[in-house]
C-alpha cells in the first residue's frame, strides 16, 4: 500500500508542516493567552509505517516565549552542566505541556491553538 494514499492523496505544499505549528499562539478555554507552541511531542502508535511505529501527536510543549527551545535543557532534568540547567529552567519556568486530548482546535490558517483546559501540565522529561 502506498503510504501516501492512507491520508487521501499525495502530500504537496498544502500538506501541513511542523514549522506551521511551531510558534502558534495558544489560548486556554477561558480565552486567556497560554503562550506559544514551542514543540510538538509525538509518540509511537500501534500502526507501523515501514520498519518503525507511526509517530502521532501526543501533546504540545507550550512556553511564554515564541522561540523558546533551549537545546533540551528544559526537557531533561539530568542534563548538565548544573549552572546552565538552573538558569535555563529559571527562564523557562512558565513552560508547560498540554496533552493532545486537551487540544480542541489547531488552526494553522487561523493562527491559534485553542485548548479545552485552563492550565498547563508540568513538562515531563523525554
Amino acid at each position, binding site marked *: 500500500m502506498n503510504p501516501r494514499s492512507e491520508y487521501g492523496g499525495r502530500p504537496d505544499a498544502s500538506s501541513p*508542516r*511542523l514549522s506551521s*505549528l511551531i510558534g502558534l499562539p495558544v489560548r486556554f478555554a477561558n480565552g486567556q493567552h497560554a503562550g506559544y507552541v514551542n514543540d510538538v511531542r509525538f509518540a509511537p502508535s500501534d500502526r507501523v509505517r*515501514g520498519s518503525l511505529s507511526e509517530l502521532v501527536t501526543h501533546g504540545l510543549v507550550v512556553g511564554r516565549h515564541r522561540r523558546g*527551545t533551549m537545546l533540551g535543557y528544559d526537557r531533561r532534568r539530568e542534563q548538565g552542566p548544573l549552572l546552565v540547567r538552573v538558569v535555563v529552567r529559571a527562564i523557562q519556568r512558565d513552560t508547560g505541556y498540554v496533552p493532545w486530548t486537551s487540544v480542541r482546535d489547531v488552526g494553522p490558517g487561523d493562527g491559534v491553538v485553542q485548548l479545552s483546559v485552563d492550565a498547563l501540565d508540568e513538562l515531563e522529561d523525554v
Partner: protein
Amino acid sequence: MTNPGRRLDARLHLLDRQILDVDGRMVASVDDVEIQRRADGTFAVTALLVGPGVLGPRMGGVTGRTMTAVWERLAHKDRTEPGRIDMSEVADIGSAITLSVRRERLSVAGFETWVRERVIEKIPGAFHEPQE
C-alpha cells in the same frame, strides 16, 4: 538506537538532524517535517522534508525568502516540490536519522548536493585533479 516506546519532541529530536542512508552516507539534514491529520484528529509524521525550498520558508525573513528565490531559479523548481523522504524509509531515529535505503534511490537533493551540483561544479577548474 530507537527505543520503540520512546516519545520524541519533533523540534528537538528531528529538525536539523543529519539523515544517513543505509550505508551510513550523508543524505541531507531534516529541514522540516510533513504531518497529516488522521481521522481521530491527531497528526501523524508522514515524511521528512529537505532542501533550500523547505528551509527558506522555515527561516523566514529576508534571508529565507532570498534562499527560496535563488533555489527556485537555479533548480528550476518551486516550493511545491520539496525534497521528501517518506517515513516508511526511516529505519532508526537516534542522534542521526538512518534510512533503510541507499541515497541513490531517493529523489531528494540535500543542500550540500545542491550546492555541489549547481554552484561548485559550475566554477571553471572544479574538476581538476587535486595537487599533491
